[in-house]
């Protein structure tokens, strides 16, 4: 019996990246600007999408993909607003993968301008999986405290932006807004940062306006 060392040098996430790039290609051709939202459970992802719908829909056709381990409650919340939504239940997996998105991508209506993907509530695993998105945002809510960026560096490193949510709780809860921004920018100095409240509506319009501008740029680059 002969033992032999075989050199491979292959990325374990390579097959996911390949599918993600195909998705990005498809979405680009359709003019669908895609945003992947990641956070710990309960940071306010679905609430933020609901508020964005109030600003964007129906002038800007949009669609939502909800990732969850078990239930389809989040998709039901979105459909209640008349917006097309798909639920992916991962059956235990703690993140969405590109191949899960690929299974439903062709059902998204023509002329859709924005696709929001709400990832499974978790700040570790989703960070490793490209879903073919144009923008990746991490949400961090006031009750979670300021040390999240240091605990979950990869999420902050791979994102383009950070949304500090539940800003209406600032005051009752001690939270140093400047400190968390500084910590996040230590990991990723180019992060775009928004602060929002889905209770009072603060900051939602600014974020919606930003998304419209980003999609415009995306369309110009497409032309």
């Amino acid at each position: 019996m002969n033992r032999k060392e075989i050199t491979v040098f292959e990325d374990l996430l390579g097959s996911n990246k390949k599918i993600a790039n195909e998705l990005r290609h498809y979405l680009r051709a359709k003019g669908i600007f895609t945003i992947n939202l990641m956070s710990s459970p309960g940071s306010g992802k679905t609430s933020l999408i609901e508020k964005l719908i109030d600003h964007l829909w129906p002038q800007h056709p949009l669609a939502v993909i909800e990732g969850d381990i078990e239930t389809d409650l989040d998709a039901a919340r979105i459909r209640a607003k008349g917006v097309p939504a798909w639920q992916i239940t991962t059956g235990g997996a703690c993140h969405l993968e590109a191949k899960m998105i690929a299974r439903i991508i062709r059902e998204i209506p023509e002329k859709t301008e924005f696709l929001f993907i709400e990832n499974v509530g978790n700040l570790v695993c989703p960070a490793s999986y490209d879903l073919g998105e144009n923008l990746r945002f991490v949400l961090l809510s006031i009750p979670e405290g300021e040390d999240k960026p240091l605990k979950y560096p990869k999420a902050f490193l791979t994102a383009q932006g950070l949304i500090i949510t539940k800003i209406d709780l600032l005051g009752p809860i001690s939270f140093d807004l400047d400190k968390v921004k500084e910590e996040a920018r230590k990991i990723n100095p180019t992060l775009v940062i928004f602060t929002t409240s889905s209770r009072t509506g603060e900051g939602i319009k600014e974020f919606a306006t930003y998304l419209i501008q980003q999609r415009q740029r995306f369309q110009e680059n497409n032309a």
Partner: protein
Amino acid sequence: MHELSLIASLFEILEAQKAEKGFTKITAIKLRCGVFSGVVPECLEAAFEVYKKDTFASEAKLILEVVPVKFRCRRCQQIETAYDLPFFCPVCQSKDVEILDGTELTLVSFEAEI
């Protein structure tokens, strides 16, 4: 925990190698894991132990090489490596750095009985 999906991807690659090269058994697997890969080495090892049972790699040893983050200073362009936050440039002390590497998870090589 996404370590199990990662090990599943590892076995997909190994299966393809097996089909191509026709070995019967794998005795060692070398992975390179960036400190910012988002992987917990202990979880990866645990997932591997579960997954390898009753496969051609059931007796294989997993060798994990943890590699540091590589970054470039945006002020003076110095390239450095580090295992821990916060990252800063040892030359000019700037904290404005661009991460170049250290997020990867790569199958480097494996040892097979042929």
